[in-house]
Each structure stands twice: as structure tokens, then as C-alpha cells.
């Protein structure tokens, strides 16, 4: 079993009896367990990642139907994101926009960027996402030893990469 806050194995299993919502089970790695147990005695250990995972857990343990849908580009599901706290590719922000919006509002109290932007004209984000998807399909083709398909995909990727560079 993985730690609730990171990828390390959970070696501490803590049941918190006091607190809102009754007894709560926690599965943590050594580091996070220590952070949790020291929370009351040594002042604030609230971390940004900790707060995020707390908010992510609000959604419950079992994947709802909407959470199983996968990003067509990188293949990550919203449920996987919920568990890891990390998105799979830039296109996730578009594909999971509906699910992410409330989360962003919760974290940042805002959902639109107002700061700096890249100097160069933005290249078509769709073409970039296509490259990511084709690379993944190529790797899958290689894995099932379909080299003909892999080589077709490689040519497509090169064409898109070259178009982006010019």
C-alpha cells in the first residue's frame, strides 16, 4: 500500500479517533507519519502538498464514473490524479477542465492567470498534445512488436516536430 501523501510504501497505519467526522484511518510512510504525529507538538507543519492532498481526499475513496474517463493524450484518469496529486500532461488542464476548476478555486481562490505570458506567439497547443499522444502510441506499438505501425507513427511525429520548429 502506498502512503496517502507520496509514492513511498505506507509503513504506518494510524487511526485517528478524535476529530470531526469520527474515527479516520490513515496510511503513511515514515516521513509523513512523523510529520503527522508531530503536528500538534511542534507547531505548523501544514505544507502546500499536504493541503492539496487533503482537498483531494474530500472526493472519497472510490472512483466515481466521471473520474474513470482518461485523458486521450497521456492516458491518466482523474482518479489517478486524485491519488497522486500530479497531472499527466499539459492537455489534462483542458480535458479535465470541469473537474479541475473547483479545485483551482479552492487552492488559489481564482481560476484565471493574470501574470506573465510567453513572449513568442503560442504555437498550436493541439499539435503539441498530438505529439505527446503519438509518442505514447508509438511506444505501445513497439511493445506489441508492431514495428510497421511504430515507424508510421515516428514519421508523423517527426513531421509535427519539424513543423513546430520552423
Amino acid at each position, binding site marked *: 500500500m502506498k502512503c496517502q501523501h507520496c509514492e513511498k510504501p505506507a509503513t504506518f497505519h494510524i487511526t485517528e479517533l478524535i476529530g470531526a467526522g469520527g474515527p479516520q484511518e490513515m496510511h503513511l510512510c515514515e*516521513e*509523513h507519519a512523523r*510529520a503527522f504525529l508531530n503536528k500538534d507538538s*511542534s*507547531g*505548523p*507543519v*501544514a*505544507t*502546500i*502538498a*499536504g493541503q*492539496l492532498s487533503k482537498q483531494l481526499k474530500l472526493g472519497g475513496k472510490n472512483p466515481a464514473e466521471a473520474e474513470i474517463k482518461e485523458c486521450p*493524450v*497521456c*492516458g*491518466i484518469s482523474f482518479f489517478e490524479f486524485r491519488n*497522486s*496529486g*500530479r*497531472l*499527466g*500532461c*499539459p492537455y489534462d*488542464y*483542458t480535458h479535465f477542465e470541469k473537474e*479541475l476548476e473547483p*479545485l*483551482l478555486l479552492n*487552492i*488559489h*481562490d*481564482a*481560476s*484565471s*492567470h*493574470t*501574470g*506573465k*505570458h*510567453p*513572449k*513568442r506567439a*503560442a*504555437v498550436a*497547443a493541439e499539435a*503539441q498534445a498530438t*505529439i*505527446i499522444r503519438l*509518442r*505514447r502510441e508509438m*511506444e505501445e506499438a513497439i511493445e506489441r512488436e508492431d514495428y510497421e505501425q511504430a515507424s508510421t507513427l515516428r514519421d508523423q511525429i517527426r513531421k509535427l*516536430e519539424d513543423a*513546430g520548429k520552423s
Partner: protein
Amino acid sequence: MLRDQSFDEFAGRCGEWLRGSGPESDIVISSRIRLARNLADFPFIRRCSDEDRLSIEREIRARLDKLQPLAKVRYIDVDALSEVDRQFLVERQLISRELADADGARAVAIDPNEQFSVMINEEDHLRIQVMHSGLDVVSAWDQITALDDLIESQITYAYHPKYGYLTACPTNVGTGLRVSVMMHLPALVLTQQIDKVFRSLQKISVTVRGLYGEGSQYTGDFYQISNQITLGKTEGDLLQEVSEVVPLLIDYERKARQFLMKQGEKDLHDDVSRALGILCTAKKISTEETMHYLSKVRMGVNLGLIEDVEVNILNKLFIQTQPAHLQKIRGRLLGSSDRNIERANYLHQHLTGHGKRESDLN
């Protein structure tokens, strides 16, 4: 960029962030800004295959190599480093613990003055950071935004018109900016005011972390004050929010020091002098204990209670007594128990007799 996997000469130097100069440097150690950036045509790191990571590292290295202003920058293959070397870069804050502990192709480009570094394949493809000594947020921003523009001239960043710079973790999206001001707050700790101060900071979206970042223990009474949010405000607003809080904390810390002096100058004088005594005479001493006593001595020097030790020496000792630094300086691998003995020797050597002047260090 220069390919050089050895950086032994760093060990004798202090590094930018502990140089101990700049505005308010008795309390504000350093001002650091980092920007999280990703390539538009690759998945985020966690979703990357080994080949993807390798391609990203090669691609970024080739692009950065084209930038003339980075000609003197040292490019280090972190994957090929020994554990001590990786730990050494973490102690100097040139790379994060996360980059040190990760697997696969990853690298860091380091400015010869150690004012900036660019981490490759950390949580995001690119983590650009600039560190200045003292309270110097504005010029740190000027430097990092220029560096960001320079890199962007070669690399297409993942950017969304509504969400800004796209990052692997939604807590960094938008500006991708984290500004961290590192402060030395021993009197607020001694007077037990620190928790109260931090709780009030959390209410205004400013967060506090330990010396080595998120989740790290607060050691040596060093605290990093950072912005919590990254989206919906301009970089200028975010910098200002943190900058506005820092003078208040400086003021609280100074008041707490005055309070301690007024309430019992003899007690305080005794406390910091004993700390110096332990550092000078101990035969074996751990990193934590060293940090604890160095912190007291540093406050004692800043209050004029200890006269014959220079603050710069203390700043250097904070970093040079860290485990990997000690081993680099001694030129050999040391187990924990041997390190404690060597650390005690090193402290004795530099805090007593002729070793007390900064110029004598190394």
C-alpha cells in the same frame, strides 16, 4: 555550458545564500525565487517513460547550449553523481531533495556564482531558481524573469491562455512562481511567539517552511516565508505580498530580542556564551546540535553579546558542518559517528584561536 562533474571548489566557499550580506542580513538570510516550467510537447514527469526523460534532458541541454549568456554555466548530470555529491548540492540549495532522490535522466545547470540554477526533470521539466543574499526580492525577480525569457527563446513552454504556465501539480499553475525569503528567527522561537506569528501568516496566504523546503524540520531557527498561491495574481503582486510580511517579521524578531535583553541580559549572555563554549570544546557533535548552538551564537553576535566571532564565519559553519560538506572538505567518506568527531574538530579549529577570521577559513 561547461560539462564538469566535479565541483570541489564550491565546498570552501559559502554560496550566495549564506554570504551574509545585503539588506537586513542579520535576520534575512536570503531571497529566493523559483519558476516552474514544462515543455509543451512532452507529458509531465510522472507520466514520462525512461526514454521521454532522456529526450527531455537532451532537448533542454541542446537548447540551453545555444544560449551565449549561459556559456560559463556548469551542466551537471545528477544521475551520474555519487550520493554525497547529490547531498552536497541539496545542502547548498542548488538542487532540491526531490531531484536528488529521483531516478533516471536528470540534471542541473549551475551559475558559477551560484546565484541561479536550472533543474531539469524535477517535478516539472524545468525549475529555474535565483538566490540573492539578504532581502532582495525585486532584483532576484529581475534576474529570473530575464533568465526565463532567455530560455523561452529556445523552448516552447506548456502554456494555457486561461491557466497560464502549466505545471504537474495544480498548486503551482499560473505563474509557477514561488518566492521564499529565508529568515533567522531565534528570539521568536525562544519567546515562544513563533507559532502565533505563523498562524496569523496562514490566514493571509503566506506559508512557512523549514530550512530545506516543504516538509523539512525547522533547523537552526531558519524559516522560509513563501507565497501559497500561484494563480490569479501577477508575479508583482505575489512578490509584494511576501515582501510586505517580511519587515513585520523583522520587527517582531527585533522586539523579541530586545525583550530578552531587557528581561534578563545576564541569562541571555550566559546562554549564548555556553552555546559558543560547547561548539568550541565538544569532542563529538551532531548536525542538529551544531545548528542549534550556532543559531544561539549568531544571535549573540548580532546583539553584541559575543564580540570576537564574525557573523560570516558562523554563516559558513552552518553549511560546512552539514554531512556532505564535511565529507567534501575532509576529502573522504565518513560514517555518522566519524562525522560527529570531525565536525567537532572543524568547529574547534574555526571558532578558537587564530581560525576565527573569515579569511582563515580553508
